[in-house]
């Protein structure tokens, strides 16, 4: 299963690297969300600084939806979808590989995006380990839930509109917990933030396990 996961992750990442969609489309989109939300929340610095973590995580969430769409689109041709099923790769391995690929892309996105938020909203992280841990956990959860819901809507012609509707409510707890954790990290209040890690850990674990178990049957339902 792990070998298969590495194989699939490598394939997905190589394709992503060649097509450069992540770089030229998803990343700019994330920044666009930042700026639009800044417009919505107002020109005053104080509310923006207060809302910065939330803005960051909203941008990450929307970018996650795009990343999921991309990951599913790799096998959008009928040939590749059949090919993957015929390949003999363990479905759990496919799940882990795709989740790893999305996760890596999200990690890079978050690093760049956070630099942008620091710059645009004039904020600084005081409890770095908290912020990083929260991000890592959240990324695992986002990737796993994302691949699952991507598989749920794969092959459907309405996938583009259905996927956000299905997956965003599920990802909402990550938005909540991530925002709170980062707020605490910005304020230097480590203990308040760790509370929220206690939400992110089971979330990620649950979707990791559920994905490994349910991806196979889901693949057959495409």
């Amino acid at each position: 299963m792990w070998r298969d996961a590495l194989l699939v992750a490598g394939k997905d990442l190589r394709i992503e690297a060649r097509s450069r969609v992540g770089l030229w489309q998803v990343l700019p989109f994330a920044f666009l969300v930042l700026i639009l939300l800044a417009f919505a929340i107002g020109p005053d610095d104080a509310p923006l600084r207060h809302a910065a973590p939330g803005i960051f995580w909203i941008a990450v969430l929307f970018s996650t939806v795009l990343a999921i769409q991309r990951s599913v689109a790799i096998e959008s041709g009928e040939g590749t979808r059949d090919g993957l099923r015929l390949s003999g790769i363990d479905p759990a391995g496919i799940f882990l590989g795709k989740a790893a690929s999305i996760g890596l892309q999200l990690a890079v996105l978050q690093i760049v995006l956070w630099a942008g938020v620091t710059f645009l909203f004039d904020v600084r992280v005081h409890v770095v380990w908290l912020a990083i841990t929260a991000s890592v956990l959240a990324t695992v959860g986002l990737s796993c839930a994302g691949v699952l819901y991507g598989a749920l809507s794969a092959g459907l012609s309405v996938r583009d509109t259905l996927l956000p509707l299905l997956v965003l409510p599920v990802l909402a707890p990550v938005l909540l917990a991530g925002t709170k954790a980062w707020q605490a990290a910005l304020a230097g209040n480590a203990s308040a933030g760790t509370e929220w890690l206690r939400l992110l850990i089971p979330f990620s674990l649950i979707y990791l396990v559920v994905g490994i178990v349910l991806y196979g049957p889901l693949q057959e339902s495409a």
Partner: protein
Amino acid sequence: MAPVVQFRAAVALAGRFPALAGVDLSLETGEVVVVVGANGAGKTSLLRACAGLLAVTSGQADVLGVDLTQDHTAVRRHVGLLGHAAPLYDELNAAENVRFAVRALGLGAGAGDAALERLGLVGRLRTTPVGRLSAGQRRRVALAALIARRPALWLLDEPHAGLDATARTLLAEVIGEAVADGATVLLSSHEPELSIPLSDRVATMAGGRITAQSAGGRSRTVHPRPALATVLDPTAAPAADSVATKGTMGAWHVA
């Protein structure tokens, strides 16, 4: 010896539509069978059912010893399907696509190189992203991926479509080599003049069923070529002296 493919009254649904409406077909090891029929007859569905992609809902369907009505996923890694759409990733080149297909089975990466060479996919053809190749070249890459995995059952859906003359000859040679090695081939075709000479048997399909079977054109230097229009009772076992079934007893000619 158990047949490689054994279908009896097999029914497969695509949505509400009965793609296969009671198929009776059996293939022995080393046979090459061509399926002909009009569009919509169910040829592609038959191939997909044999590959374990289309669930058989009733009747009997055994492929390579696996009962498809119970678990149709188990047979997939042992078959090679060449469908209409090539299972290729456009951003990767031929070598990478074949390598992925090969490593998926746990084989070493080098297993694909021989296949790529055999099909003439060298130099520029090997290193260009597949999305930029022509349709015929993509077909060749897909064929290379299939060969590299060395499946026991080949399922080819209109393999001649989009191939130029050189590629067609290559295909014929490659099929011959595979069969000599013990593979079994089931292919569908709209071009009888190309496919019948390759085959031991011709099955006609219509309305989701096999409606007729006749001898193929695979000639052997030892035995005389059998009459083309012999209609066989599909439920009876093939008689020993009728259609050429197993093995290559001699040179294999393209008529």
